[in-house]
C-alpha cells in the first residue's frame, strides 16, 4: 500500500442480538441484529425500502419477513435469507462507518461468538468479500480482552443473547482448551421469563421483544429492594404486572451453569496462576448488565479461596472497541496476509 492511501480501521462486534462498530475515525454505531424484507408489494410501498435493518426492522416487523440471522451463536444453517441478513447487517455497519470516508481502504476486525468462530469463519469471509479490503476474524471474548488489555491471567465471560463464551487469557491467542461456550444466555433467560409469566398470568398478552426489554431494563439476581412492575395488555387494556419473582427466577437460571463453567475452566489453569485469574474475572456483553450477577459469581468463587468478578465499562461497545484495538495494532504485513 502506498503511503498516500488512507485507511479506515474498524472493529465490529457481530452479535446475536446487537451488532456494533467502532472506527479509527472515532465513530461508533450499534444496530439490533435484525433484518427484514417487505413481505409483498404493499409492504414495500409502506416501508419504502428494499430492506430494513435494526430497530427500523423491528418497528415494522408486521410488514416484513424478519430475520435474526444468528441463533445460539451460529449463522442459521441452510437459510440463504439468514446469510443474506448477516451480509446486510455487516454492510450496513460498514456503510455507516465509511459514509465520511469514501475511497479509503477498510481494514476490519470482526469479533463473533466463539461458536461462529468455530463453524462459520469461512462463510463470514465469503460474506465480507468485497465489502472490506482486509479482514481478521476473532472470537468475541478475545476482542474484549484485547480492548481492555486483559491478555494475561484473566477470564472473560461474554454473555450474549445466543451464547455465553468463557475464555481464559493466559498470554497466548486462546485455543479450544481455553474456551467454553454455553447456550445459557440472554435468549434462554427470555424464554424462561416468558414461560413463567404465561404460567402465572395466562391472561396477559406480551411478545418476546417485550420480555427482552423487561429483562434488559430490570434484570437482577439475588435480593431486590423494589418490586419490578411492568405494563402489559390484558384483553387490550394495559395493566400493571408484577414480574419480580419470575424475573429473579429466570435471571438466576444462569448462575449455576456459569459458576460451574467458570470453576471448571479455572481448574484447568496452571495452579500458580489460578489465584490471579480468580481475581480477574471480567463480564462483558449485554447480559452482564443483570444486576447482582457479578456478586453471585463471586460467591461461587469463595469455595476456591475467593475472587473478584467485574463488568467492563461499556458492555455494548467493548467487543467493537477491542476489535478496533487489534486492527490498529496489527502490522502492515499482517493485513497483507489477510486481504479479503
Amino acid at each position: 500500500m502506498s503511503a498516500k492511501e488512507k485507511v479506515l480501521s474498524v472493529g465490529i462486534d457481530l452479535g446475536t442480538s446487537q451488532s456494533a462498530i467502532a472506527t479509527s475515525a472515532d465513530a461508533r454505531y450499534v444496530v439490533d441484529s435484525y433484518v427484514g424484507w417487505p413481505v409483498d408489494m404493499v409492504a414495500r410501498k409502506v416501508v419504502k425500502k428494499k430492506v430494513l435493518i435494526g430497530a427500523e426492522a423491528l418497528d415494522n416487523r408486521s410488514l416484513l419477513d424478519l430475520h435474526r440471522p444468528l441463533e445460539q451463536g451460529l449463522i442459521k444453517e441452510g437459510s440463504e435469507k439468514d446469510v443474506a441478513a448477516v451480509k446486510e447487517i455487516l454492510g450496513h455497519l460498514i456503510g455507516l462507518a465509511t459514509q465520511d470516508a469514501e475511497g479509503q481502504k477498510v481494514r476490519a476486525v470482526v469479533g463473533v461468538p466463539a461458536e461462529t468462530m468455530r463453524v462459520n469463519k469461512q462463510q463470514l469471509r465469503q460474506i465480507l468479500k468485497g465489502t472490506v479490503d482486509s479482514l481478521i476474524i476473532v472470537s468475541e471474548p478475545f476482542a474484549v480482552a484485547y480492548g481492555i488489555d486483559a491478555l494475561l491471567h484473566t477470564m472473560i465471560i461474554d454473555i450474549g443473547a445466543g451464547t455465553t463464551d468463557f475464555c481464559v487469557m493466559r498470554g497466548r491467542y486462546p485455543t479450544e482448551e481455553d474456551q467454553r461456550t454455553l447456550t445459557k444466555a440472554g435468549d434462554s433467560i427470555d424464554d424462561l421469563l416468558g414461560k413463567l409469566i404465561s404460567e402465572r398470568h395466562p391472561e396477559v398478552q406480551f411478545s418476546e421483544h417485550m420480555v427482552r426489554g423487561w429483562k434488559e431494563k430490570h434484570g437482577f439476581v439475588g435480593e431486590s429492594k423494589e418490586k419490578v412492575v411492568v405494563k402489559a395488555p390484558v384483553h387490550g387494556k394495559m395493566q400493571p404486572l408484577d414480574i419480580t419473582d419470575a424475573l429473579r427466577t429466570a435471571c438466576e437460571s444462569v448462575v449455576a451453569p456459569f459458576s460451574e463453567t467458570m470453576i471448571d475452566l479455572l481448574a484447568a489453569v496452571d495452579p500458580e496462576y489460578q489465584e490471579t485469574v480468580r481475581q480477574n474475572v471480567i463480564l462483558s456483553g449485554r447480559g452482564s448488565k443483570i444486576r447482582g450477577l457479578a456478586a453471585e459469581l463471586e460467591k461461587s468463587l469463595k469455595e476456591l479461596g475467593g475472587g473478584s468478578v467485574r463488568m467492563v465499562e461499556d458492555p455494548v461497545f467493548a467487543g467493537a472497541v477491542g476489535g478496533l484495538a487489534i486492527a490498529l495494532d496489527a502490522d502492515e504485513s499482517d493485513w497483507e496476509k489477510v486481504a479479503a
Partner: protein
Amino acid sequence: MSPRSPWRPPVASPRLKRRILSGAVDDNLRALRNQPRGRLHRRRPVSWALVAAATASAVAGAALWLVLELPESAVPPLARRPAIDAALATGTPARTPPQVFPVAVRKVVVDPGHGGGDLGTRTPLGLVEKELTLDIARRLVAQLRGDGFEVELTRDGDRRISLRDRARAANELGADLFVSIHVNWFEDGRANRGIETYFLGPSDDPFIVRLTSAENRESGYAIADVRRLLDSIYADLRQEQSRALARAVQRQLVRSLQEVTPEVADRGVKSAPFLVLVATEMPAILAEVASLSNADEARLLAQEGYRERIAVALYRGIRAYSESVAQTATPTEVR
C-alpha cells in the same frame, strides 16, 4: 471497569501482545488455507492410510508405491520403519512390502469415568465410582505400558473433567483407541448385575437412554455441538471398529469375571450415544465393568484383586483387538 475498587490486571508486555496478535493472524491464515486449527500434525490419517495401503497391497499381492506427504512429526517414533524413514529422508517414493506397515494399535487413551465433584455412582458404605474407575484405569495403564503400548490417562487424579475435554485430549494426542471405564448402577440392584460394553450408536432402550443422559450430563457441549456431532457420526467407519473393540473387551471381561462369580451377567455389547464416544475421533468404547448397585459386586469391587482382574481383562481385550486389526485387516474394515 466498575469503580468499586482499583482494578489492576496483569499487563502483557508489548512483545507478548504482539505474539498474541500474531496468533490471531495465524488462525485466520489457517482458515484462509482451509487448515483446521491444531490438526496440522495428526497421526490417525497416517495410520488409516497405511492400513488401507497395506490391505490393498495384500489383496492384490502387488508391490506398493507410497508417497508420504505429512511432516516427519506426524509419524511417531514407534511407527517409524526403514521404508518410511527412507521416504521421509529422500522425499521420494519407497518401494515397500506390506508387512512393514504399522497397523497395530500403539497409543491408547484410558478414561476413568467421573472425577472431582462428579462422583458417579456410590454405595451407602462409601464406595465411589470415580475412585474405582481411576484405580482400575491406573492398573490398566500399567498392563498396557508393560506390553509396549503408549498410554495416556484423561485424568490421573481426582479432577473434574468435562466429557468434551476428555474427548479432546484423546483427539489431540492422536490416540488409536479410547477406552472409558465406568461402573454401572441399576434401579433393582439384586436382579440386575453384570458387565456391558458400549460403542457409539443410537439406542431406543429406555434404560440406555436414562444411562446416557446421566453420563452425558457433564459434557461441556452446547446443543449445537451435539447436533453437529451426531448428524455426521453414525455412518462412520469408527462405529464398526468400535463395535469390534467392544466385543473383544466384553468377551475378556465376562470370561475373567465369571471365573470369580459365575452369577455376573454378560449384558452384552450395546450401542448408545454417549457423548464421550461421539466426540472422539478414533475407535472408542465405554465399559461398564461392574454394577455397584449389586451388593455382591460392590463387595468384590472393594477388593484390590478383583479390580486388578478387571484391569487385566480390559488389557486382554485391547490386546486381542489390536492383534486382530494387525493380522486380519480386510477391505471391509478399512472401507
